[in-house]
């Protein structure tokens, strides 16, 4: 291989593409960053502390880069430890926001709430979760096994037992379903 090829630096876009499965956690101050870094490393996550990109205008001058797919579990771990991040955003596009649209489908006896790629269906009379569909991360079949067939009020929440962004989407559908069912 010619030396100049060996030394050639990666194109910026290529570098970002390779990190498209990573996210940034933004904190109020550097003390929280250090605490978060220690906690997440101790729990075995691959993270690193770095300077924030220009798009991020809140928080201190350090961010924690983390595996984006595990946002649900990581944010919950930080919340439980009393160091909730101000923001969790994708590295590739820090201005993107989580989906905030719900699709509602009324099947008569059953009601389906969809958030992003996750759908949760409840029997309106018994308030039993009868189905969960959609999603692609490996916690989805697990969440469905733990939640389907149980009362909406008694099933474990995705936030408690989920890990991934699909779990996060299911949490939003679950919260919306609970809100709707408490009104009826």
């Amino acid at each position, binding site marked *: 291989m010619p030396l100049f090829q060996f030394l050639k630096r990666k194109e910026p876009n290529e570098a970002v593409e390779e990190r498209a499965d990573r996210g940034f956690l933004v904190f109020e101050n550097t003390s929280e960053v250090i605490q978060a870094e220690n906690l997440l490393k101790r729990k075995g996550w691959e993270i690193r502390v770095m300077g924030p990109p220009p798009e991020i205008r809140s928080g201190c001058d350090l961010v924690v880069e983390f595996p984006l797919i595990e946002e649900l579990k990581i944010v919950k771990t930080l919340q439980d430890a009393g160091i909730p991040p101000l923001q969790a955003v994708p590295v590739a596009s820090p201005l993107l926001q989580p989906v905030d649209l719900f699709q509602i489908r009324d099947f008569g006896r059953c009601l389906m709430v969809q958030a992003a790629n996750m759908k949760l269906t409840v029997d309106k009379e018994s308030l039993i979760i009868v189905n969960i569909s959609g999603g*692609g991360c*490996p916690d989805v079949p697990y969440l469905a096994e733990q939640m389907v067939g149980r009362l909406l009020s008694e099933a474990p929440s995705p936030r408690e037992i989920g890990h991934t962004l699909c779990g996060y989407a299911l949490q939003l559908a679950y919260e919306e379903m609970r809100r709707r069912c408490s009104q009826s």
Partner: protein
Amino acid sequence: MLAVVGTVPNPEFPLLAGRVSLENGEICIQGRQVSVKRGTPALLAAAIKIGEVLGQEEPFGYLVGDIGRGEGSRQLYKYLAKHLSQTDFHIIAFHYIQPLIGWHNRILSVIEKMKKRPILVADAGYMYVAKISGRSDAYDLFTPDIGELAFLADELAPHPFYTRGFLLHEENRVSDLITRAYVHRNASKYLLVKGRKDYVANKNGVQTIIDSPSEEAMEAIGGTGDTLTGIVAALIASGKDISEAATIGAKVNRLAGSYAHPTPATQVKEIINHIPEALEEILSKRQEGKHEQG
């Protein structure tokens, strides 16, 4: 032969590679049984049912337990990187796996060096990672639902959870979303978009729409997308071309659903039981159509 790569929702389940059979409604691999509720076990069960009708050999499975922590998925990626080059599968279907770009790219690099490149199908987490790696065009078939199609069409989104609102869920704009996914090179050679209507598409746009029989409840039933991917993968393994397999597969999945008289509370296992009769009916109708044309 068809190979299926995916996970099962049990953290204790070890990494296993081997032929997968269906026994008493559960999939069986290396003496271990897994119940069929949704996810990769549902994909495998559907593929096995198709194989039974067509007289095909059982699929080869690469399975590991993972409940979202990614540990099982990493083991699986590592195993595939080491062993895949020694295989000669006709088609590989990648399914529920933690989307990890570095590992995905390693697997793809192994596949690209294989003497005979297998047909590559990706659904669920593996479709997500194929897209965010910028390597969608290395795949022959993705099987997104409408929400996942919007994610493919969104050149910025790293996961369906971050798909921008203006792209979400307007089924009458499926054609536009397909075009946008191809423009940004985030689509495979063929797409099978599953939903109230199923669409078979390629870079030239929608080629076929399958919309009957129509059962509204199917949308709520977990695992119906997995069965569709399994049916299509098994049809491709039988020698059908991708477009034809996708079209037949969509019809079979719909008909099997219809035979189950589904409600939103129906479980996918009830639908899987009807796949053989649905396939026989669809193939028989196609045969009659050919005779009439001849």
